[in-house]
C-alpha cells in the first residue's frame, strides 16, 4: 500500500536504533496534594521493530496509564519517551495529535466505532482525518476490511455487527493508515475465546513485520503465546520482563 501522505515530522534521528519505542524513568501521578496518587513509579520499556509486547498485571498496576503516555495522550511527570526517534516531551499537543495520526494505530477495548457510520466509513476515519479524498479513503478501507475478513460486511452499521466483527473493523481502522506502532487496550476483553484468538493472531501477524511493533495491554492469559515478550506490571513498576516462550514453558 502506498504512503498515505508525506510525514510532517523530521526524518528519524537514529534509524539504526534497535528499538522503535524507548521509555525511560517514566513517572506519573494523578490528583493534587494529599490526594495525589502515584501511578507509575519509574518505568523503563523498550520495544524493538517487529516485536509484539504484552503488558500484563492486575488492575491499577499502571498498564493503561503507560499505554496513554506512550500514545502521547497524557503528559509524563518525569522521564522520557522516544518513538521512532521523536521525543514526545518536545512536542506540542497539536504535534502529538499529528504524530499519532501519522505513526500510531489504536485498538480500544470498547471499539469506539461511530454508530452512525458504516463499517467501511469507520475504517476510513484516520484517512479522512488526514484529509484524503473520501472515495480514495473508502477504497483503501475496503481493502483493509477484506484483509481482516470483513469484505462481506462493508456497509453494515456497527450495531448490527457482532463483537468480533466490530473488533475487526476497529483493527481495520487502526491499520488503514499503515501505522508503525499499534497500541491495543484489552483487544480481546469483549470477545469469546475463538474470536479473541483470531484477533490476536492478526495482531501478531502485523507486529511481526520488520518496521512495525505492537504493544498490547491485556489480562487475558490465553493470548500470552502471541507475545514476543511479556512485561509484568505491579504497583506502578515493571517487575519482570519475560520472553513469551519462558511463560509458556
Amino acid at each position: 500500500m502506498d504512503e498515505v501522505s508525506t510525514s510532517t515530522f523530521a526524518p528519524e534521528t537514529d534509524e539504526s536504533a534497535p528499538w522503535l519505542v524507548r521509555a525511560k524513568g517514566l513517572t506519573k501521578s494523578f490528583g493534587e496534594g494529599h490526594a495525589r496518587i502515584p501511578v507509575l513509579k519509574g518505568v523503563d520499556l523498550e520495544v524493538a521493530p517487529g516485536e509484539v509486547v504484552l503488558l500484563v498485571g492486575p488492575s491499577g498496576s499502571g498498564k493503561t496509564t503507560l499505554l496513554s503516555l506512550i500514545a502521547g495522550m497524557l503528559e509524563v511527570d518525569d522521564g522520557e519517551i522516544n518513538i521512532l526517534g521523536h521525543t514526545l516531551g518536545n512536542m506540542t499537543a497539536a504535534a502529538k495529535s499529528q504524530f499519532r495520526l501519522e505513526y500510531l494505530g489504536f485498538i480500544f477495548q470498547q471499539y469506539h466505532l461511530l454508530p452512525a457510520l458504516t463499517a467501511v466509513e469507520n475504517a476510513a476515519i484516520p484517512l479522512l482525518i488526514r484529509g484524503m479524498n473520501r472515495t480514495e479513503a473508502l477504497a483503501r478501507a475496503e481493502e483493509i476490511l477484506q484483509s481482516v475478513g470483513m469484505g462481506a460486511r462493508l456497509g453494515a452499521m456497527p450495531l448490527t455487527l457482532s463483537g468480533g466483527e466490530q473488533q475487526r473493523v476497529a483493527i481495520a481502522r487502526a491499520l488503514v493508515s499503515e501505522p508503525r506502532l499499534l497500541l491495543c487496550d484489552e483487544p480481546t476483553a469483549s470477545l469469546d475465546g475463538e474470536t479473541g484468538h483470531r484477533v490476536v493472531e492478526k495482531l501478531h501477524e502485523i507486529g511481526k513485520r520488520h518496521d512495525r511493533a505492537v504493544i498490547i495491554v491485556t489480562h487475558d492469559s490465553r493470548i500470552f503465546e502471541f507475545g514476543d515478550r511479556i512485561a509484568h506490571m505491579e504497583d506502578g513498576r515493571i517487575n519482570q520482563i519475560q520472553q513469551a516462550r519462558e511463560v509458556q514453558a
Partner: protein
Amino acid sequence: MNVVALKMLFGDRAKYLMLLAGLTFSTMLIVQQGSIFWGLMMWSMSGITNVNVPVWVTDPNINQVEELKPLADTAVTRVRSVPGVEWAVPLYKGVQRARLRDGNYEQISLVGIDSSTLIGRPQQVLAGRIEELRAPETVAVDQLAVERLGGPEKIHVGSVFEINDHRARIVAIVRTQKSFQNIPFVYTTYERALGMTPPERRKLSYVLAQPVEGVAAEELAQRIQEETGLGAYTEEQFGWKTVRWILKNTGIGVNFGTTVLLGFIVGMAIAGQTFYLFTVENLPHFGALKAIGAGTGLLAKMILLQSFTVGLTGYGIGVGLATLFGLTAAGGGRLPFVQTWPLLAGVLIALLMICGLSSAISIHKLAKLEPAVVFRG
C-alpha cells in the same frame, strides 16, 4: 470529515429532531411576532402613508397622526405663503359614525380631501371613479368598509348609507393600508366632510404641502415651522413620530419584545442543552477521534458544521412556517403581518448566535477532553 460530522448529527435522530424543532419554533416565533409587530407599526402609519404627500403641517404640539388637534382655517394660506411651497391643501380627518340601512352603526375614519385636486386620495381604486367625489353627497370607501358596513352585496358602487344623518352615496371602492385602530376609511371632499361633522370652532386637521422643485421636503418642513410656528414634518418624520409615540405609550414594544426575547431564550435553551447532551453522549466517539489524531480544531469544525446545519435548516423551516402563517391566517390584510428583509436578516443573525453559543459550550467541552478517556472503557 464533513460527511462524518453530518452523519453523526443525522444518525442521532431523536436529538436532531429535537434540535430542529427547537430552532424551528424559535425562528417561527421570532419571525411571526416580529412581522406582526412591524405590520402593526405599518398600520399605525397608515393615516400618513395612505395620503402620500411629502410634507404634513400640524399643530405644534401634536404627538401622532391620530391625535387630532385642529388648526385655524388660516393655516392653509399661511403655509402657501412660505417660500418653497409648490402647493398646500387642507385635510380633514376624524372618527365619525356611519348608519347602515339596517339601522346599525359603525365607526369610520372620515377623510376630507381637497375637492379641486383630490390630493390625499388613495392610490388604488378597486371599483368606480374617485373623481366622482366632486358630485354631491358622494364618498369613496375602502375594502375594510365594504366588509364592515355589510359586505360586497350591500356595499358597492352606488349603494347609500348615512354619516351623521348625512346621505353618502358610494362612487368608488379604494384599497388602503389598514389603520392601527382597524377602523374603515371613508373619503369625501374637504368641504363635504366639514358639513357632515358636528360644528366645532376649528375643523382643519392638517395642511398638506409639496415643495417646489429643488427644495427638499426636510428643508421645507423646517421653513414652515420657523415661519408659521406650526408643526411641520416630512411624511417619514411624521410616520416615525407616530411609531415612537405608540411604542412609548401602548406597551406594544415591550410585549412584542418580550415574546421575541422568549423565542430567543427558548431556542437558546433547547438548542444549547440538546447540543450539549449530543456532545456529551458522543464524548467517547470524539475521544476516539482525538486519540486517532483529530485535533481540537478539526473537532470544532465538525461541531460548528453540525450546529449551523441544523440551525440553517431550522431557520428555513421556521421562516417558511411563519410565511405560511402570513399567507393564510394573516392573508388579505386580516392581521398586521409584514415580513421585511431586515427582520429576516436579524433573525438569521440571532439564530447564528444561538448556534454559535451552543457550539462554543460543546467545543469547550471537547477542548478539555483528554483523548486518554478512550482507554478507560
